[in-house]
């Protein structure tokens, strides 16, 4: 007996997913089109013993989230483009200091104030490279209301497991969309707990946290008396050290490898009709919905078209793209930006297939009709070339 379906908005689903994941702290600043996440959590968090703060800006919001997480509470913030830009500084701090936290960016048209109420996918590269310096990041892209819920839980799990900020790249369309969904029952989805290191406080400084054994961070105000810093620090002792190149190199490489070493475990890609596909559509987020409609249409016409939909955008699903490149002759990359991910796809395809980019930056969702035209062109071209 499954639960009755409920009509839920994408932003509301993020908020409910956060609560289900055990988040008990939210700090944010109002911004369209993410505000419903703050509004829902302002109402809901106190009902489950959590706390909500509206901060003075987005910098303060992510800073407070870092502080609350360091004090031992699973924490998140939500924003959109302009606020996401402001948060980059402290996303870097969270990355450097290895603070688990979740940042939801409900993407809207930009740059600057841009198109506040219209969707975009223009922040996908900012999510990867927005903060300065060498670091790595995990970013997840929901394409449905149900995924807004489930991926928020997964974002918290990943942030706890890899002790890193995790970004959810929603958009104005998915965030404001309502869908009939059946939410998983409590306990149905795995929820990772924070935990404490299984060693004595006096041993903590000398216990090595390596790639396969990422120790949880003990909370502030515990016997561990940790020092947390945004300076380069000795990965074993936690003490800042900016004068030893080998220490800086060790930390810099570790912060990247901590994610990339586990890429196979982290990355999730959904494939549709790829077994015999000759043309693949690589699409993510709300655009993947249009792409799915096109694959169904194409198959009904007998055209071998498949879909590769990255659910994890960062780390980039290189293996899935390489596999795809070995099979299809063309990859179509429709996205609500200009070439941001198609450039990345092209790098992974490495010339083994043609990459066709298609971008829209007018705040409108790419329609199935537009993608159909791109698909048709590829088949006509090949018919002509083969004959």
């Amino acid at each position, binding site marked *: 007996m499954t639960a009755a379906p409920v009509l839920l908005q994408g932003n509301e689903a993020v908020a409910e997913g956060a609560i289900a994941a055990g988040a008990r702290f939210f700090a944010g600043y109002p911004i369209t089109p993410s505000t419903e996440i703050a509004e829902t959590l302002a109402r809901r968090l106190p009902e489950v013993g959590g706390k909500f703060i509206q901060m003075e800006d987005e910098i303060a919001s992510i800073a407070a989230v870092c502080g609350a997480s360091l004090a031992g509470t699973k924490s998140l913030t939500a924003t959109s483009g302009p606020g996401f830009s402001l948060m980059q500084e402290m996303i870097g701090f969270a990355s450097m200091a290895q603070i688990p936290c979740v940042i939801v960016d409900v993407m809207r048209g930009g740059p600057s104030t841009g198109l506040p109420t219209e969707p975009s996918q223009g922040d996908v590269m900012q999510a990867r490279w927005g903060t300065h310096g060498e670091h790595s990041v995990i970013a997840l892209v929901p394409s449905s209301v149900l995924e807004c819920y489930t991926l928020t839980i997964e974002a918290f799990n990943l942030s706890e497991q890899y002790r890193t900020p995790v970004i959810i790249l929603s958009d104005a369309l998915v965030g404001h969309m309502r869908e009939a969904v059946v939410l998983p029952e409590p306990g149905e989805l795995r929820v990772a707990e924070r935990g404490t290191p299984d060693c004595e406080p006096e041993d903590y400084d000398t216990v090595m946290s390596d790639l396969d054994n990422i120790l949880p961070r003990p909370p502030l105000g515990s016997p561990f008396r940790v020092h947390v*810093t945004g300076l380069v620090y000795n990965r074993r002792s936690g003490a800042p050290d900016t004068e030893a190149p080998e220490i800086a190199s060790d930390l810099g490489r570790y912060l990247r490898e901590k994610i990339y070493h586990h890429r196979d475990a982290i990355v999730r890609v959904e494939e549709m009709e790829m077994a015999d596909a000759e043309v693949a559509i690589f699409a993510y987020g709300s655009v993947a919905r249009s792409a799915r409609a096109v694959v169904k249409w194409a198959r009904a016409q007998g055209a071998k078209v498949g879909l590769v939909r990255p659910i994890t955008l960062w780390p980039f699903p290189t293996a899935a793209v390489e596999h795809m490149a070995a099979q299809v002759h063309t990859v179509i990359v429709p996205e609500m930006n200009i070439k941001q991910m198609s450039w990345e796809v092209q790098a992974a395809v490495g010339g083994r297939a043609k990459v066709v980019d298609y971008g829209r930056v007018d705040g409108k969702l790419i329609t199935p009709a537009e993608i159909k035209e791109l698909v048709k062109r590829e088949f006509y071209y090949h018919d002509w070339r083969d004959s």
Partner: protein
Amino acid sequence: MSALVDEQKLEAAPHDAECKPPRIKPHTTSEITPWLRTPKTIWCPGCSNGTITRALIDAVLGLQLDPEKVVVVAGIGCSGRIAQYLEYSTVHTAHGRALAVATGVKTADPSLHVIVAMGDGDCSAIGGNHFIHAARRNIDVTALVFNNSIYGMTGGQMSPTTHMGDKSTTSVRGNVEAAFDLSELAHAAGATYVARGTAWAYRQLVDVIAGGISHTGFSFVETMAVCPVYYGRFNLTSDPAEFLKSQKEHAVPVGKFEDESRLRERYPVGVLHHSERAEFVASLQAMGDKALEAAHG
């Protein structure tokens, strides 16, 4: 919500400039040093940051706080380095963000004693917005500002507390901007405990810091710091002892202070403002308790 605010007496208590902070008996060096992670600092000879660090440890010891519950959150600059030297839970955040991080720490775990160490530029330039809003919320953290009237870490540039006419590497012909009076700014923004001390008057400094920590609400402690290498060399004296002695001339006990504050020549020290009003985390907790009861009751 209005009922909640009424219950907690939002109205400020009458201004009490006569508030006496606790008297702390200074501790011996052997009592102080266990709370330092390292004997080595990056601070210049003659810098007063070591004095302020010791005063903070003295205050924590004097108040008999559980050291495991003490969290020091620092910003970036010379003062920010205090975090890595103290043997408490410590966070060395980003420039200007210490109070915002501390807001998250205190809200998530109200049992912690959260002390925020900032420089003058850290607190009032890049962190100015967080500063006034933390004061407005009256969140129960103690903001300890090391005011040396200059950016020391970057080599002596003017800050919002550099006095008009003062020289720095970015005001080589004299500063044309007016300076903030940080204590009055904190008071205007809603801080419920505001005190000023000097590196010169050590025991008073320990006492006003202890007063801030034991106060419930946003407490602001401004320490007039000594920076002989930059501020002093450009404007006063590069001799640390001379600089320190000048504070004796400038500082006037708050009860005896009658001039308009002009900061550079004369400024009041002691507990400048003290009042009571609803504390942020307690109010949030009270509202949450009601919501929890309504949801499950």
